[in-house]
């Protein structure tokens, strides 16, 4: 019933639709410390920035979860936001100061 294309079309057509998914995932650099960074690079799970992970791999991990990591629902981060986020993560360099975890 719901395809990525439909979600994309809906997101583009209705302004505010992305905000309705949850709103917090529109700005990846802000999302990182408010969600991922609590574990990744903070002693719970591996640092992912700077690893040039393929976006498809990140999408799969987020939608299906990983050992120790929950799955993320489309009502929290829709397909369009997920695409933006994975692109950002795959291109973001590792933090310069490894002590600055988050």
């Amino acid at each position, binding site marked *: 019933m719901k395809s990525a294309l439909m979600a994309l079309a809906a997101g583009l057509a209705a302004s505010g639709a992305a905000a309705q998914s949850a709103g917090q995932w529109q700005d990846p650099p802000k999302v990182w410390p408010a*969600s991922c960074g609590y574990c990744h690079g903070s002693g719970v799970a591996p640092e992912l920035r700077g690893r040039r992970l393929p976006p498809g791999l990140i999408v799969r991990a987020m939608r299906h979860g990983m050992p120790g990591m*929950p799955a993320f629902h489309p009502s929290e981060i829709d397909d369009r936001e997920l695409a933006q986020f994975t692109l950002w993560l795959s291109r973001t360099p590792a933090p310069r100061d490894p002590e600055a975890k988050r």
Partner: protein
Amino acid sequence: MTTLASFLAAAARAIGAEHVIADVEGLAPFARVMMPVPEADHAPAGVVSPASVVEVRALLALAREHKAALWPTSTGRNFGYGSSACATPGQVVLDLRRMNRILDIDPVLGTALVEPGVTYQQLADHLAAEKIPLWIDAPGPGPLVSPMGNTLERGGGLTPYGDHFANSCGYEVVLADGTVLRTGMGGVEGTTSWQAYRYGYGPFLDGLFTQSNFGVVTKIGLWLMPAPEAHRTVLAIWDDPADIARLTDAVRPLRIDGTIGNFGVLFNSTLALTTTSTRADLYQGAGSFPQDLSLATARKRGLGAWHYLYSHYGPRDRVAADFACAKAALEIAGARLIPDVHDAMSSGELTLSSFTLLNWTGGHGLAWFSPVSPMRGADMAKQMRMAREIMDAHGFDFMTGVSLVGREALNVMPLVFDRGDPEATERARACFSALIEAFGAAGYGLYRTGVGFMDQAAELHGAVNLDINRRIKRALDPDGVLAPGKSGIRI
């Protein structure tokens, strides 16, 4: 079309096709569980994500018309209790995450009114942005989850407001027939006190909507703690596993009279080790992680058999006086104290550091076995002995992180296993079921339980109790459209 397909088609017309999920790939994040139960036994058949109370009412009307069952979730992250998955397969998740407005914060009274999808992170960010000196009290997965979901499951945290249900005040509930109920003082026209006074007039109803399937809570009032002038977190350590009895008896009066300001958390050596090690780092043998090895490793790291992380809060003078009283009493009971430690959860801060627990074995298998114990040393010792024996017999590692509430202790034991291993998963299921049975036979009930074990837990709490719940269910939701099987309750 099947009734389910006709419901989903009608739902798509009502709230937009982009807010309805029915394909296998789209459902995957909602089907994933950590519990030792087959995903197929609890897999949702669809997801509908309304944006408003109007849409919730429309979906309930459609569910009645098409005989669909709706499983409400706020953020759907009841980790180790079922996450988003349903008590029975084929239900449609009523995913309230898109309803995520903070409707009101009263900095004077220290109250909030929020929708289901608001997370602790969102609430904390809002308070910080507005420079409102109120604390949040978040559970272990805090930043990812919602005050509503955790409160309705009667979850807990580590500040003085750790009893989340006790610190909730005034709900808006949509009943199965579309009635919108505002509990407590919310029914008074032009109410001034909805988030200030819990009980309203006549019967106090809020509890009916916790751990239940009697309605869809769409707004919840919260009490937030004013940031204290001072607080001090202490780690008390006991070296002998048998110390559980005397430490329980020593802590009880300090909790009942408020000298210790939060439940704190009492954890054993193995749970302590999970924060810095994986199981494979320490042990590659068969069976459960040996207690001798656990204790020896803990000792090498300056840890012990039991650790009680607790805090004092308030004006500086009070914190100093409470610290001295608790220190004296706990040292007499054999504790050594690390007098100043930082703990984020005890300090109103967000963290996911407890997720290191999931690295212990890898494989994301987690189920919380959570019996209630009266706060007596003999009972606590008995519960620990029983749980250890049953977990040992099933080849799992005994761990516990206990909330020392006051007259009761919530003995929250993580059963951690490799969910990628079908044999281990089945063994964990058998272990969990054996734990419920043995604890029930010894007169202990459960604080909370997850999908797959709700019927067994409900049975343990008595046929009359279950029957009364069923009568209420039939009165409020005669078609049984809301979450059949939640807490064992069906029409």
